[in-house]
């Protein structure tokens, strides 16, 4: 049961092979028994989950179930869920029980899905290894000495360890794709504006986008069907007709034009990872696709520009955490300013403070043009590179991450090294494009993820491209050893 696809689970529920309460209990028992090894969850609330499961069983019994009714899902702890502790991985929100639902949670609730728990993450989604969480590092189920990637590391570890059938994540600079790649999963970051950000705790508002982390492209399509949609409460939500993201899954890939950016295939990528990527591309050629070399000349500027833009937006977004309206307040202080300063000094972790300071600096008088405006101009150059590239190809492919999962502690002391682990994912966020990670091999027992990048709103095409590959390969079906 625990290795079935979402549609397989939906079938089992529809045919009364198992009830939602039984399925939810199965996962809750696994979490209770195994999660101390991985630390994938911050909050589990059996009572709430089972109440939702019971309601789902009622819907199923009356024939009113949909594709996700009764299926338990792990929710990244960045999504506000009414009555649930919602920490965003931070001491600052360590006591925050959300009084409302994020739109994404609302959609899943309306679909009859069950919240299995809230997953661990880098604090305020700022990190690439899940080591910045106030609630401790998450361990990679493939090798517990290694990180699961970040920032959606708890979601990825939960799915990889079979502690959830699927999960949500958010991706500001690679936070869905990189942990999916490092945990052998399929992850999708949609086009900016497709999934509502309402109730998704903000890090960098012009880059943040929610999406699914699951075991297959097909599962991702089902999840995206529930997550996507216009929301007037998010001013950047796009008002577009609803789509069935699973509609093109089976389309043949004959004639597909794959762009291979020379900047993704040069130095800087681990040779073992590169070999897997090249084998995956060879598989695509066998499926009838053609490859063309392309160039994204401003690629190398993506990390520098991102580390101006994202911290600038974060410094503004995180100013709301002041100890007045919600969350942590320092126990002792002299006056109002002292209360703000002590609350923020004690409530935020080191990496979050570092990014707030970078952001405050680049937005301050005298530096705004040199840093912030320059970064925004470079962002335009990077987006233009993709526009030009998509005149030559339908989809871009390359590695998701330059290495497999690294060891816990290996990069924690050196922010620059940590930042460079997102070198292949960040440009996609700057341009606002959709991207995926798809399992494409193992190196030294650790998963490698192929990255797919599509043009704006090409999610169903990307899912199709990933799905056809998953029909002829079994990397996505492999599990870490010793999970029972």
């Amino acid at each position, binding site marked *: 049961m625990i290795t079935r696809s979402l549609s397989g689970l939906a079938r089992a529920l529809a045919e009364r092979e198992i009830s939602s309460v039984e399925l939810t209990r199965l996962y809750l028992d696994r979490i209770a028994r195994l999660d101390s090894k991985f630390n994938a969850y911050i909050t589990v609330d059996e009572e709430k989950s089972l109440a939702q499961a019971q309601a789902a069983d009622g819907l199923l019994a009356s024939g009113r179930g949909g594709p996700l009714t009764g299926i338990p899902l792990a929710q990244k702890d960045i999504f506000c869920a009414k009555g649930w502790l919602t920490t965003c991985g931070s001491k600052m929100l360590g006591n925050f029980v959300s009084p409302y639902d994020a739109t994404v949670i609302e959609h899943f609730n309306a679909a009859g899905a069950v919240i299995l728990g809230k997953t661990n993450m880098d604090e305020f989604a700022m990190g690439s290894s899940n080591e910045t969480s106030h609630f401790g590092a998450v361990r990679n189920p493939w090798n517990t000495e290694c990180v699961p990637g970040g920032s959606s590391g708890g979601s990825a570890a939960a799915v990889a360890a079979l502690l959830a059938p699927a999960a949500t994540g958010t991706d500001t600079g690679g936070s869905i794709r990189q942990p999916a790649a490092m945990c052998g999963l399929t992850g999708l970051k949609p086009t900016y504006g497709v999934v509502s950000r309402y109730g998704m705790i903000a890090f960098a508002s012009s880059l943040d986008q929610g999406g699914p982390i699951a075991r297959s492209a097909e599962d991702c399509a089902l999840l995206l069907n529930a997550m996507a949609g216009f929301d007037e409460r998010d001013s950047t939500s796009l008002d577009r007709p609803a789509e069935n993201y699973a509609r093109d899954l089976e389309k043949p890939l004959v004639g597909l034009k794959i762009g291979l950016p020379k900047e993704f295939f040069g130095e800087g990528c681990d040779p073992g990872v590169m070999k897997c990527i090249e084998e995956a591309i060879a598989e695509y050629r066998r499926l009838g696709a053609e490859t063309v070399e392309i160039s994204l000349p401003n690629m190398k500027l993506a990390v520098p520009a991102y580390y101006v833009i994202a911290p600038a937006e974060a*410094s503004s977004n995180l100013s709301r955490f002041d100890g007045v309206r*919600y969350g942590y307040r320092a126990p002792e202080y002299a006056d109002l300013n002292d209360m703000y*300063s002590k609350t*923020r000094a004690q409530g935020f972790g080191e990496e979050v403070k570092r990014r707030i300071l*970078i952001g405050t600096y680049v937005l301050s008088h005298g530096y705004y043009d040199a840093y912030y405006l320059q970064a925004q101009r470079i962002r335009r150059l990077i987006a233009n590179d993709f526009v030009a590239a998509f005149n030559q190809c339908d989809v871009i492919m390359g590695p998701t991450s330059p290495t497999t999962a690294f060891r816990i502690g290996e990069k924690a002391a050196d922010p620059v090294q940590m930042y460079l682990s997102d070198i292949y994912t960040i440009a996609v966020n700057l341009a606002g494009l959709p991207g995926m990670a798809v399992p494409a091999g193992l190196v030294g027992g650790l998963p490698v993820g192929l990255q797919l990048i599509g043009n704006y709103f090409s999610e169903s095409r990307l899912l199709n491209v990933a799905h056809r590959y998953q029909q002829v390969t079994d990397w996505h079906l492999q599990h870490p050893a010793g999970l029972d």
Partner: protein
Amino acid sequence: MSLTLEQVRRVAQLARIDISDVEAENTLGHLNGIFSLIEEMQAVDTRGIEPMAHAQDLAQRLRSDEVTEVNRRDAYQAVAPETEAGLYLVPKVIE
């Protein structure tokens, strides 16, 4: 370029984050490392390039000026550190 300890303290003060001398020293080292990465942008000639402020070049959507939310003050204040009679309490600002 390279930041000074004084600038780190100043920025921390602007961001309302209390910072000890030891923390300021450590932060200075890290920030200078990060800024040496960021400085790679400065070599690029971007004259005439329109800044891209957002992932979609769209105008902000407007809505009519109507009350659309119900009053949920009690629910929202239930999670506040300190309230009284529907108000948020902070240390005294005006003597």
